[in-house]
């Protein structure tokens, strides 16, 4: 049994490590998932007899706040990675902690929004706009949660790898970061489509 090559070092002819190719392929699949949901949105809205005024039903200020939170978390994620790369675990810990905090903040705001809708009797069964809103933001929130689990692992038990294989650990942070940015980008599409258009 030989050890697997290219887990941390780059394969010269492809210019990639295995995890980096893996995460990009994963994201390609995710693009198709969210793409299907956005297509469903386009088809249902273009065929609808009437469509509610989205910005009147949903809270644009809260969503703007969430956009700021999520973009900030992408910045702190990059800073966490550069901290790990520079061998500064203290900076990694601070910025990764901030990233997690932003993720939690995003989900908290989302929970407030959901709770407010439920309190006013606005449910997926009310109309297809709300059904799409809950489905698409729900799927996105699950992705945020999954990213937070990975980030928490890297901050907690996963950080032990820093001592044994620092380069591999840094790659893991980078791969987690690529995913985190993707989740951010999905929100940047969701925000205008669901709240503003």
């Amino acid at each position, binding site marked *: 049994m030989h050890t697997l*090559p290219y887990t941390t070092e780059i394969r010269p002819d492809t210019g990639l490590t295995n995890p980096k190719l893996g995460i990009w392929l994963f994201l390609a699949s995710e693009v198709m998932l969210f793409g299907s949901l956005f297509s469903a949105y386009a088809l249902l809205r273009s065929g609808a007899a009437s469509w509610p005024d989205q910005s009147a039903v949903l809270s644009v200020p809260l969503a703007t706040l969430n956009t700021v939170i999520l973009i900030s978390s992408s910045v702190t994620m990059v800073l966490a990675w550069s901290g790990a790369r520079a061998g500064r675990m203290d900076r990694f810990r601070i910025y990764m902690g901030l990233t997690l905090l932003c993720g939690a903040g995003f989900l908290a705001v989302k929970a407030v929004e959901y709770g407010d809708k439920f309190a006013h009797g606005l449910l*997926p069964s009310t109309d297809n706009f709300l059904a799409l809103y809950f489905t698409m933001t729900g799927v996105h929130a699950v992705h945020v949660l999954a990213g937070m689990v990975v980030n928490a692992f890297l901050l907690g038990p996963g950080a032990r790898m820093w001592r044994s294989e620092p380069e591999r650990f840094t790659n893991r942070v980078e791969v987690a970061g690529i995913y985190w940015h993707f989740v951010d980008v999905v929100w940047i599409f969701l925000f205008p489509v669901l709240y503003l258009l």
Partner: protein
Amino acid sequence: MAPLKYLYSTDHKVIGLLYGFTSLCFLLVGFVLVIVIRWQLAFPGQPVPYVAGLLGAANAPGGIVLPEFYNQLGAMHGTIMVFLGVVPLAVGAFGNYLVPLQIGAPDMAFPRLNLASYWFYAAGGAIMLASFFLPGGAANNGWTSYAPLSDLAPGHGQTFWLLGMLFIIFSSLLGALNFITTIVQLRAPGLTWFRLPFFVWAQFVTAFLLLLAFPALQAAALLQGMDRLAGSSFFLPSGLAVSGQALDVAGGGNALLWQHLFWFLGHPEVYVLILPAMGIAAEVIANNTRKPLWGYRVMVYSVFVLGFLSFVVWAHHMFLTGMGTAISAFFQTTTMIISIPSVVILSSLILSLYGGSIRFTTPMLFALAFLPMFGIGGLTGLPLGLATTDIPLHDTNYVVGHFHYLVAPGTIFALFAGIYHWFPRITGRMMNDVLGRIHFAGSLICMNVIFLPMFVQGLAGVNRRLWDGGAEYAHAQGVLHFNVPMSIAAFGLAFFQLFFIVNLFMSIRYGRRVDTNPWEATTLEWNTGTAPVRVYRDPYDYSVPGAKADFTPQYERAEA
């Protein structure tokens, strides 16, 4: 606990065998379901003999299959065969076991994801099987789960189906990204792209189809789950009435949205079923004709074109929905174009036979039968790809005959060829040849007796989903008598599979012991040396003039 360690091993060979064993079991389950269907079609309303008690009093009181249960059998036969049987065997088992070996990799790129992929698949399968025991039974809306029927189906069978699909889709996503990464990153030194065996190319393109097509069904399953559980109306149009009662939902949905999302997966899925089979057939044919594949490069280009085009043909399943002639024209055109690369690959395989000194081994027999059977399946698809001829044929037994020729004596024959061919690689023993030949001849005859009359029945207009097989309809009367011999052939097919099952298990213990490369093959999986491999030549260097044997393995250095 020795056996338990196999359930948690991250070795690609062990995972491949787990996939293989599980998917063969599911193939058997799917086959048993269709045996009950065939009984009901040949002898409608008569009690099922011998096994009536196993069906459950709620499903088949006195052994007589109820229409509701018949619908479950049909829906779950399709689901189990496609998603839990053939694809996991072709990709999960053959791909996992052979791709790393054929490219000289130590393992898959992500061994733990590989194991996770198996367990998500097993969980999805368990959910599907469990749904039979729910009150109201399993999903009964056809394997395509068309809305709004599936949205409104009572009971929890359909919800379980959606949940099971989510697990299976996640499993195939993990598998697909693993295959692509492995093939891109872990090829042995010297193994350039055009030295890859065709099987690896087929798996490579298949993985892209799984990666990019399956998420559409994932989205669709989520939307249908919302419809069923949260009361949304994604697939429920306004003004829908059920049994004369207006439905109390918001409405505004679109039933065609389900069909578009489903077939966006469903059509690439067809190629997921076929491409690995073509890959296996190519390996077996090159090995048993003792010459290189005819047109290897063209086959590789064709498989790419096939993969790409398979994303733009999906609505040819929907000509009857009235989506408009302009859209129909587009999808007819792409459908006609996609037949070209399929024909190129099949023709190349047939031309590969020319001038070969063919060894009629058991795997070769299956691979040879694959060619004309797949050809019948492909050619009978042409009238279905054109809207004018599809309209009368849609949803008839003709369609059933068409895709079964592709998948049953097509893909499954290639899979059998693969099992007989690579069995000695796995166990160091040969499978029994006599039993193998009986299995082959019996299966070939029975499958044709089952599926050929379906074209006649379909042309007569017999609908494919009728509980009584069409006994109520005047236009079906002339062709109903086919049902009895067809069903007897189905029971015969079951009988001949016993030869395979006995052979498989007996050969593990008692098969003839063989050397590491009993077929005298050239590709890397037969190199059982422990040193890291290096590749020096093309995949099919058979009968090279001047070489010391009629095969020169890829790992053998060129003689200077």
